[in-house]
């Protein structure tokens, strides 16, 4: 049952992604609405698959790479819908759904078994720490998509070739504003995730900070986004520079998420 729901959600996201890619080349109001509806259905099914797994495992399903990727994708879609509700930018899906699909696809190829929770993880911190971390990372993921949209639109305006997506992309000001909002949302979430992580580490392993690769890379991410916010407020690094930084930031997150787990040895072995 859990598997069926997951596969179904993956299929819907896949379809929506295909539509969103076609949308880039040949968009219409109808295809845009269709993409949103299909993503919405996928999101509902995805939510129920997570809830199902929550009851099957007895804890938030976020303790294996399979579960974590899937939950990450879920958070991204959640933020995408919140933005869509507020700004109604149909073309945004074309830049965010591919990210969702890649996350879901990685989730689907990873082992799906439900393992008993190791004693260190049995703590209320599990829910709090991971939820904060994923919501924060998901904001950065969407900021990544919006950053690409900004760079594209800026390119159109600077080069004065005003065709292609120029008409359908929103204004630079809106894109920059969304980017800023997402990072202002993601940054405190990430900060809290690191703090709760440290508290949890103290209670589980006896020390707040062990320079574990996961911890180091999370801190790197934190510094990048702290920098993004800092230079924006002090030196007025907005627009293109902010967009580029948010793209770099998300690449580091992806490395922290996949790279550290798969390549480096980490205490933070689960996710």
């Amino acid at each position, binding site marked *: 049952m859990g598997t069926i729901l997951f596969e179904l959600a993956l299929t819907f996201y896949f379809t929506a992604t295909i539509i969103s890619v076609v949308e880039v080349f040949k968009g219409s109001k109808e295809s845009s609405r269709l993409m949103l509806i299909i993503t919405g259905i996928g999101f509902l099914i995805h939510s129920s698959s997570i809830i199902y797994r929550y009851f099957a495992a007895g804890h938030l399903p976020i303790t294996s790479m399979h579960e974590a990727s899937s939950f990450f994708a879920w958070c991204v879609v959640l933020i995408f819908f919140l933005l869509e509700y507020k700004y109604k930018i149909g073309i945004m899906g074309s830049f965010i759904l591919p990210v969702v699909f890649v996350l879901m696809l990685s989730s689907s190829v990873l082992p799906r078994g439900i393992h008993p929770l190791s004693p260190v993880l049995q703590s209320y911190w599990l829910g709090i720490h991971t939820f904060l971390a994923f919501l924060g990372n998901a904001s950065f993921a969407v900021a990544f998509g919006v950053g690409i949209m900004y760079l594209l*639109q800026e390119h159109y*305006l*600077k080069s*004065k070739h*005003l*065709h292609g997506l*120029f*008409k359908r*992309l*929103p*204004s*630079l*000001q*809106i894109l920059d504003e969304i980017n800023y909002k997402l990072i202002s949302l993601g940054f405190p979430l990430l900060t809290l995730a690191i703090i709760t992580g440290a508290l949890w580490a103290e209670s589980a392993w006896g020390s707040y900070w062990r320079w574990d690769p996961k911890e180091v890379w999370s801190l790197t991410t934190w510094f990048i986004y702290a920098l993004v916010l800092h230079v924006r407020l002090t*030196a*007025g*690094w*907005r*627009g*293109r*520079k902010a967009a580029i930084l948010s793209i770099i930031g998300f690449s580091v997150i992806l490395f922290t998420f996949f790279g550290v787990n798969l390549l480096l040895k980490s205490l933070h072995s689960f996710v």
Partner: protein
Amino acid sequence: MKVLVIGLNHKTANVELRERLAFNGPKLEDGIFSLRNVPEVREVALLSTCNRVEIYACVGNANLAADNIKDFLSSFHSLLRTDFENSLYLHTGPDAVRHVFRVASSLDSMIVGEPQILGQLKDVFDFALSKKTTGVLLNKLMKKAISTAKRVRTETRIAENAVSVGFAAVELAKKIFTDLSGKAFMLLGAGEMAELAARHLVNNGVQEVLVANRTYERGCELAKEFNGKAVKFEDFLQELVHTDIIICSTGAPSYVLSKDQMQKVMKERKHRPVFLIDISVPRNIDPLINKIDNVYLYDVDDLQEVVDSNMLERKKEAEKAERIIDEEVEKFNKWISSLDSVPTIVALRQKAEEIKGEEFEKFRNKFPGIDEPTLKAIEYMATAVMNKLIHPPTAALKEDTEDRDELIAMIKKLYGINGDDNEE
């Protein structure tokens, strides 16, 4: 009955002739009432704009009607027929329908896709409707023209792109800033094109307007016109720090704004985006400024290029629009031709009902002892027989075939439907 369009527009007549044939103010009402009384004209509406004068009519004999309308135009405007006859175009039947649809959809306009014409056409029909000079046919034609125009508007992108330099500037500004209402705008120098573009920006919500002109008095005049503030020309660099949109047209022989200066300005305004439009020839703003982050510089050629490529796109969209109009014209023609058979179908059914009623009455008088339920059953049967009998001719009448006129005549003869043959 036939639809007829007779008129002239910017393509067939010069402005002088259009003026002389225009129906302005009270002339419109006089004109439409006089037209209503022109022999062979049964329904009429009248459009008079600066680019066209057109008469839409529903007529009996088209040639006669056209001739009478020309006579009317000549006497109404006190012109010789030969003065304007060569500039007139005349469409009848399906061609007339197509013409009305194309006009409404703005395919026949000077600037293809401009939206005013649809509103003007709506006014024309409202006016004709209020004066009761139109009937079934023209009312339907108008409704269809409006719905076709709307279909063209939603299904093609014909009206989407700016086709004037001023509008192109507004369109670009909206892609940089979204909402122009909170933005500060500065007019640097003056000039017709710059003022026109400035007016477009103000119409699109820009509230704070600054004018910097070399002659301060001229600047004050312009500022008054835009409800803005005049500043000294020497101070414009300081003003740039809190100005978001600048139109420059100073007529200076060299650059008045260099890259270094702009870089300093950007630092001071914390890199908030700036949109610079340089309409001057030779250019007044160093083109290298476009390379600075968050600065968008367009010169007059850039804007013209935007306009040209938009024009091209409109032409492509116009082809799509023509196909939509083809479809709608065909639908409308079907409706017109079905009109002719409708009275015959109604008459045929009436005749059959009459016969049934009479025969049923006779039968009841002949056999008075029959109870009510049986009578009901018999009447039911009679109705069924009648329906079966008139179904094939009715179906044949509804069919859209070439020899339908003959068919109508034949059915009238066969069933003894004596014609109220005047088809009004």
